[in-house]
């Protein structure tokens, strides 16, 4: 079993997934391997940075609407995505906070499309699965936030 946060590589594809959650890797069928793939690492790094910004955007939403705060499901999902990608929350406030739920939903929807494109571009099948699933999760958040707006 892999230690949490260990540098691991997806089987057969030369994908170095440093920091990617082990449960997530196992769900995608990955196992340790020593060969990194720079292009895939860039895709993962970009997805993690984007996820960090999305969480900061969510936390920066003025007044945190009650409909989102009520059960915490949206924030839990977004924070779990970041944690599983191996990222940590931003240390400072969002660079450009959303001004409404509609704005926030648009950011998640755009990020979902980004992750979809990354999933198609990924060389490693396991990373493609993670990014495709991440895209679907972002799209679900966008739909949930948009409905609350």
């Amino acid at each position: 079993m892999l230690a949490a946060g260990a540098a691991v590589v997806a089987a057969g594809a030369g994908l170095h997934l440093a920091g990617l959650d082990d449960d997530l890797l196992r769900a995608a069928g990955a196992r340790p391997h020593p060969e990194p793939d720079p292009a895939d690492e860039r895709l993962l790094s970009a997805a993690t940075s984007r996820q960090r910004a999305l969480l900061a955007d969510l936390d920066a939403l003025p007044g945190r609407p009650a409909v989102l705060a009520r059960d915490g499901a949206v924030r839990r999902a977004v924070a779990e995505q970041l944690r599983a990608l191996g990222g940590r929350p931003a240390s400072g406030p969002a660079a450009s906070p959303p001004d409404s739920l509609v704005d926030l939903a648009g950011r998640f929807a755009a990020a979902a499309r980004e992750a979809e494109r990354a999933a198609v571009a990924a060389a490693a099948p396991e990373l493609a699965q993670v990014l495709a699933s991440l895209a679907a999760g972002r799209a679900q958040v966008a739909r949930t936030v948009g409905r609350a707006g």
Partner: protein
Amino acid sequence: MTPREAAGWRRVLALEHEAVWTYGLVGARVTDLRDDAREAWTAHRSARDALLARLAAAGARTVGPRPAYDVPIPRDAATARRAAVDVERRLAAACVALVALAGDDERRRAVAVLRRASLAAIDWGSAPQAFPGLDRS
């Protein structure tokens, strides 16, 4: 379409058949959800027919519907919504599995179906999931 891609799409097709059956059941049993169920039923019928045609055009084997599915009979809106979320989540999982098997074109299609199923799960009452279709247990 490669044989591996065709096998992945057959799993999706089997679930499209099940979704058509499930939404027919929901529409017939729960009056309050009849319009939504009809819309979902129509969408899954279209997806099923398009997939059947694509598999056939590729010379790949297809799968047909079962006589019935192991879906609890919806007694009310809550149980109907659970049945709908369940089939959409399993569709999402089949698409995530297919992503690993597919080349660019088929992967792009699988990602699109994954998005559709994941959003349908939200529409039928699911809370957002961090990673739809990936079983992380």
